[in-house]
Structure formats: structure tokens, C-alpha cells
């Protein structure tokens, strides 16, 4: 019975995506407002370069691993009206697979089939997710990679887990934050106190996982470097470290980045006032990394997927650039956390959180729209304040999430770990 239901959920999600995909084709064919994402044109252009045996980095703003352009090679096949959409189908299929894996992992966590499907629907039947992947954004692929990582870790497939993590970091740097939490999670059962945990930290599983992850990551990088040379390093990695990011986005840093990257004209009334030497924009990675890769992983033993959700949420919230596609990164992990969250147990709190998140985002979008399309100067204080409020709301939610995960450890983890030991 449950099997049939999972199948029908997956079929339903596929139909949803198919409908979006066909609608997109219709809109692209009839309207000048394109359904297809600009990035999809970047990927497919890059794939065309690859098909002509040249480098995908010849396409301006292609800032991804060459693997993505290889993966999209079929989009260059003929007839174009069929094959051009191959990437969208692939991304949507990635979505579905991610959703299927979400159900599987939730089942490992003791969710009933119905409940697992209910939470997986947050991803599978989410119109935003379906839209993003059928518009041709690759974020959905990342979702399936991250859930696959979670699944293989939970299944104790150490080598596979390392390989997936290495691949994920090569694909899109940020999953490196999962490395410390997975390592901490791989806790042998016979170490009751901190001292024994530290003494016995080096275990075979941890060593194998680290070596496989590092060598997969480096192996892919070396391979790509051997083929595409310097542009690969520049566009895939260095770009993200050196980019100016002065254009407006959700990040609380964005007004500051504009201010600090622009040449500064002193105010004639207060010529002595210049920009401070505070280089907080250069230190922005500190709170971000401290939070997402050092402090939050300490909760990994309480609940790994919820911890990964919190880490991703923190990474995105504290990032110097935040666009709405980044929200996909944590959305895929939301079903795991939400099932055990106080936001579900206390519906008022949950609704307040959701409403605040949506409203402050809308506030920012309103300011951005006025600037971008109506030419009104909303840089300061409007856009800045909207980004700041959105940031604070995110921090509040993150605080709630952290509190929940903290409690999970004390209440439920013994049961789960016993069950796991038993199932081993």
C-alpha cells in the first residue's frame, strides 16, 4: 500500500514538473518574457562550446564545474526543439530522485511511510522547487547530491559517502561544511566521555571517509585543470573568493560592499571623515564559517540532517551574497528538521516564522523592484534596512532551529542510537 502511495507521489511530482516544463515551452514560444532561466542559457551555451571541443569557460559568466556542461551535452543534439530541454528534464529528474531519497532517509529515522511522504512533499510538491528546476537552474542537482550524501552516511557506506562529499564540494564549494558534522557523527559507541572521544577520535571510518573525500575532490580538480587549465580554477573557485558582489542582493553586506568597492569621494563638509579601515566585508567569512562549519556541527550527534539543515541555513544567511536560488540549498533538508521541530509542535510559532520570513523577503523585493525597474534610489536606507531585517528574521529562526536540535539530543537520540546499534 505504502509502495503504491510513494509511486503515486513520485508520479504526481513528475506530472507537476512536466506541466511546468510544457508551460515553460509555451511561454518561451509565445512571450518575450522568458520562462527559461538566464543561467540555463549559460549552461547550454557552455555545452555547445564543449560539443565543439572547446572550453565551456569561453561562455561569459560560466562559473561552474565543466562536469555540468558535459552533463548537458545532449542539449546540443538535434532536433533542438526536443533536446534543448534535456537539461531541464535532468534537473527535474534530480528533484524527483532527491524527493525519493528524502522519503528513504526519513524512513531510516523511523517516520511512517505516510508521514515521510507528507514531509517529502514539502520538496516534491513544492511549486517553487518545480519552477526552479524546470526553468533550468542547476540547484536541484545539488539537492539530490546532498540527500544522496545523507542517505549513504546513514547507510554507513563510508567510501561512497566520501566520494559523494568530494564530488559535491567540487560541484559547488559550500557542501564542505558537512564534512565536520559527518566526521563527528561517525562516533564509535564505546566512548562515553569527552576525553575518550578525543583520544579515540581517529577511527578507520573517519580516515577512510576523509581520504576518499579529499582524493575525489582533488582528483576531479586535477582532472579538470589538466583539461581546461587556469580558467577552470579562476571561474569555478577563485571567482567566488574575489568577486565584488556590489549589486544588490539579500545579503546584509550588500550596501556595505557597494560602498567599500566604489571609489570614495570625501564629503566636503567633513573632509576628515573617510571610510574606516574596518574591513568587516573581508572578515565576513569568519562568523559564517565559525557558525556553519565549526559550532553547528557539534550538534551532529543529536540529529545529523537537522544539523545539516541548520548549517546550510547559517551558511546562506551569513553569506556575502544571497540570492533566492540559495534558499534551495536548505529547503531540501527542511523535511528532516521540520518533522521534529517546535515550529510544527507550536503552530503559532511556526506560522509567525513563516510569515516573517515571507514578509521581510517581500519587503526587500519591493525595495529592489523600485530601484531596479523604477529607478528610485532605495539603496539607503530602504534596501539596506530590508536586507538587515530579513537577516535578523533568519537569525531568529536559526536560533529556534538550534534550540530544537539541542533538545533532540536529550530526548530522542538514545532511542535512535539504540535502534541503529540494533540494526547494525
Amino acid at each position, binding site marked *: 500500500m505504502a509502495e503504491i502511495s510513494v509511486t503515486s507521489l513520485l508520479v504526481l511530482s513528475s506530472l507537476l514538473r512536466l506541466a511546468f516544463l510544457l508551460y515553460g515551452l509555451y511561454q518561451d514560444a509565445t512571450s518575450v518574457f522568458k520562462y527559461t532561466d538566464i543561467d540555463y542559457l549559460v549552461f547550454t551555451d557552455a555545452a555547445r562550446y564543449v560539443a565543439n571541443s572547446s572550453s565551456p569557460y569561453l561562455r*561569459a559568466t560560466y562559473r561552474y564545474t565543466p562536469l555540468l556542461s558535459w552533463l548537458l551535452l545532449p542539449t546540443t543534439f538535434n532536433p533542438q526543439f526536443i533536446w534543448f530541454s534535456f537539461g531541464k528534464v535532468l534537473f527535474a529528474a534530480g528533484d524527483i530522485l532527491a524527493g525519493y531519497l528524502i522519503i528513504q532517509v526519513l524512513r531510516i529515522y523511523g517516520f511512517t511511510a505516510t508521514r515521510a511522504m507528507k514531509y517529502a512533499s514539502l520538496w516534491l510538491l513544492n511549486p517553487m522547487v518545480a519552477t526552479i528546476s524546470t526553468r533550468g537552474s542547476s540547484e536541484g542537482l545539488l539537492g539530490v547530491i546532498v540527500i544522496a550524501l545523507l542517505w549513504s552516511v546513514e547507510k554507513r557506506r563510508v567510501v561512497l559517502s566520501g566520494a559523494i562529499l568530494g564530488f559535491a564540494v567540487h560541484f559547488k564549494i559550500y557542501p564542505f561544511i558537512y564534512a565536520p558534522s559527518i566526521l563527528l557523527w561517525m562516533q564509535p559507541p564505546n566512548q562515553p566521555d569527552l576525553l575518550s572521544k578525543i583520544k579515540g577520535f581517529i577511527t578507520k571510518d573517519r580516515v577512510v571517509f576523509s581520504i576518499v573525500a579529499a582524493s575525489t575532490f582533488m582528483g576531479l580538480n586535477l582532472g579538470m585543470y589538466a583539461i581546461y587549465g587556469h580558467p577552470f580554477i579562476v571561474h569555478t573557485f577563485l571567482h567566488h573568493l574575489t568577486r565584488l558582489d556590489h549589486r544588490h542582493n539579500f545579503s*546584509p553586506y550588500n550596501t556595505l560592499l557597494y*560602498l567599500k*568597492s566604489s571609489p570614495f569621494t570625501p564629503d566636503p563638509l567633513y573632509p576628515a571623515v573617510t571610510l574606516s579601515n574596518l574591513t568587516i566585508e573581508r572578515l565576513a567569512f569568519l562568523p559564517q564559517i565559525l557558525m556553519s562549519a565549526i559550532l553547528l556541527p557539534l550538534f551532529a550527534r543529536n540529529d545529523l540532517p537537522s544539523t545539516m539543515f541548520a548549517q546550510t541555513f547559517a551558511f546562506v544567511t551569513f553569506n556575502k551574497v544571497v540570492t533566492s536560488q540559495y534558499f534551495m540549498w536548505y529547503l531540501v533538508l527542511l523535511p528532516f528538521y521540520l518533522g521534529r521541530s517546535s515550529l510544527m509542535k507550536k503552530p503559532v510559532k511556526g506560522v509567525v516564522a513563516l510569515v516573517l520570513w515571507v514578509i521581510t523577503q517581500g519587503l526587500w523585493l519591493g525595495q529592489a523592484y523600485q530601484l531596479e525597474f523604477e529607478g528610485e534610489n532605495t539603496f539607503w536606507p530602504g534596501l539596506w534596512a530590508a536586507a538587515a531585517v530579513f537577516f*535578523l528574521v533568519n537569525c531568529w529562526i536559526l536560533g529556534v532551529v538550534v*534550540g530544537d536540535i539541542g533538545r533532540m539530543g536529550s530526548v530522542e537520540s538514545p532511542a535512535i542510537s539504540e535502534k541503529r546499534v540494533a540494526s547494525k
Partner: protein
Amino acid sequence: MKRRITFLVSPYEDDEAPEDPLRLSEDALEIKGLKAIREDHFTLTFDELPQFVKDVVEQTQKLHVRFDNGGNTENDWLGPFESRLPLGVHIFAVPLKESKMTNLCSFISKYADIPCSSIEANFISRGQLKQFYAPDVDVLSNILKPLANKICGPSKKACKDKVLALRTATSLDLNYDSASNILDVNAIWMSPHGSKGKGESWDLQIKPGAPGDRVEVGVFTSGGKSPSEEELSLRGKLAVVGRDDELKPVHFSFASRHHFRRGEMHIPEYSKPTAGLHPKVEVSLSTTEDPPADGCTLNAYFTVPQPFFVDPYQLEDDKLMKSYGIKKVKAVEGETDLEAPVWAMSKWGAIVLVELEIEHHFRIWKKIRHHLKFTLPFHLRYMPTHPEKHKDTAILPAPAIFWACPSEQWSRMSKNPFDRRMLGYEEYFPEETYFYHLPPRFRDATLSRWSLDVPILNSVDSQLIEWGTMGIVVLGFLWVFGAILTSFLGFGRKKVEEHQKKE
């Protein structure tokens, strides 16, 4: 030095000049009350050039410097002076061998006050050809003062006045070709004070400056119907001042590359409402009944200076372009980075050449006499912050809009005494092409350009922005950090409690 002065009287001027405005004496030509367009054409051999000019041209195989003050919005007969360019300063240079043309670069930064660190950094490259452009109409007057001092020396006022007189020119061209080793200087005035000023007339006396100089003066008007579409016919009088005893009547025809059709013009405007950081320019064209000849295409050539830019990938979208009235994007060259702010750009911008969709327009023109319209989408880069301003001005010059038609007489066109080559767009057409230009007409502007306000971040609160951002981030961080601490401590406490319970 050879000098040729041409006056061009419009054939449409109603008043039949009652009195002959020209009086030739033994050593001078006196002109009184002549309403005309004037062109001064100087021909200088390499040896006649001042050293600092020699230094510049020596490194170039070809060099064309063109100024246009944007005042030529006449849609009247301009005879051989029909060719048009977006207003501002245009430089086209082909280096001699592998030269980096460093002297050209230091020349423009020194005299025109245009920052130039190297040709490679600041000019856009079109193969061998290096192109520079600035939508600045004051460059000419700014550059002439220091140039006059340099050329004439400090004391020679007469010489300086002569150089400074170029300041009011509607357009000025400098053309150098290393093959002939000759520098041509061409200045055109639509009227004595440069701008439109109808009814103003020329009163002056023309004399050779030095004994060896040759000054040829011609006063022409349209010579009536020319033998073919591609030809222009002029009639009038001609004399070499100081040599000829009388003005000789002449009537001659020549094949011309640039033409005009009465009644054709274009009216550009920003699409309303002003589109923020993504402005679109909509251009209405008033055309006559049919294209000038079979096989003609209608084109628009834009020079797109910072902070404007076009997205070449957007322009590749054929369906979108078609909906904008553009049949084909023929060229996008120069700086098209899609993300960088103005201050990260070293090049001046880009050029865009598009072919317009005309078939549908002319098919229904006879039924509905509407304007032909097209739109080009632009985007704006972020501009530097400022403590006193909340917006900065972005200037986009009106495009050159023209018919390009297949020519039969192209091989004769270089014999045209007024021929003008290398304008930035003819290179995209075959040699066998001639042009009809559609002059711009602005609804409420005197110059053929738009200016648009771009919102910028006002930096007067820079301290507040810095500390505010830091405050917010610290606050958010501490909140989450507090939650983490509480969880750890709380978890620890509960564990202890559980322990105690068990005991």
C-alpha cells in the same frame, strides 16, 4: 599647407540673394551676408606638422579623430556633408606594424583630459583597428586652448585665433594616412556660430596666411537633378584667392557615399516609465513611402559608453529582437561584461550595429501611415558613490541611422572631393555600398543625446552604513551563538538530571 573653403547654400532658401555676397580683389575674397554651411579643409604634409603631432601619427598606419558637437540636427539638404556620427569624440587608429601607439594615448590624456593608460586598456579592438569614443561635446573646446599654445607659441595671437576658431565647428575631422603621409583637417560649421541659429550669415575676408599658402574658395548650391541616385550635382563659383582674377562658374557631379532623403528622420526616446537600471531606448523613424532602392537595409549604429551596456546574449534572442523591430544584430564589439561596476571598467564601452525590420512596415505603410519603431534594451552599471549626490548622469548619444544600399558607382566614390571614410559603421558593409542618413530630431533637447539619472548610493552616511552593518551582523551572530550556548548548557543540565534520576 593647402586650404579649401567651401560654402554650401541650401537650394531651399527662398530669398533669391539680391546682391552678390562675394567680392574678389587682388589678394582677398570678401564675403558678406552669405547664409551657408561652411567647410574648411586643410591639407598638411608630414613635414609641416608640429613635432608633437608627428610623434603621434608616426606610430599609426591610419588615424582618424572626429569631433561632433551634436548640433547638427538639421534635416535639410546638406549636399556632400550628409554623413553622420553620434555626438562626441571618436578615434579610430590602426597601428603601424606592432606599435602600441603610446604617443596617441599620452596625447589624449594630456590635451583632451581623457584618462588613457594604454591603447590596449582603454580602446576597444576591432581586429587591427582600435576604437575610442566619448560622448563628451566639450572635448573640442577644451583641447584647442592648450593645442593653440603648443602650435603657435605664446605670443602669436593671430595664429591662436585661427586655431581657436575651430571651437565653434559642428564637426571636426583629423585624418592621417601613412601611405600618403598627409594629414587632412576638415571642419564644418552649420552656421557661423556652430549651432542651428537660422538666419545667421557669414561676413568675412579670406586671405592666404603666408605667401606660399594656397586658398581655394568655392560657393555652391545644388546643381539640380543629378545623373543618377548615387551622384550629387553642385553648381556655383570657384576661385583661388590671390591667383585668380575672377570667380569661375562651375557645375559638376560626383558619386557620393552619403545622401539624404527629404522628410526622413528619427525621433529617439527612453521608453516610459523610465526603466530603472534596465532602460530601453525606443526610436521612431519617419520614413518616406519606399526604401530608397532595391536591396537597401535600414540600420542603426549605437556607440554605447559607460555606464550603459548591452547584454550580447539578450541580443542573440531572435524572437525578442524581432518583437523590438530588429531584424538582425550585425555587430556588438567592445566591453560587454555583464556584472562589473563602472569603476572596474577601463574601456569606454561598446558599439552595436543592428539591422531594422522593414518589410512589415512598408507592406502596411500605404494603409496606415505610422512611424516605424524599434527598441534596443540597455542595462546600467553601478556608478561610484558620492557624499552629495543621490544620482549620477548617464549619457547615451543618439545613434546614426541610415539606409545602406548596394552601389554601382562605388569605385568612383573616392574621387569625391568631400568623401569621408571610416566612420565606424561602413566597415560592416561591403565596399559597394552607399548610404542615406536619417538625422535625429529631439522633442525637447538641443543635443542629439539622452541623459538619464542613475541612482547611486549616497555616502554621507558611510559611517552609519559600516557600523550599522557590523551591528546587525554581530547582533544576529550573538543571538544564534546564544542559542547554541543555551542548548549546550541546557542539554548538559538535562543529562545531569537524567543521571540523577537513574541513580
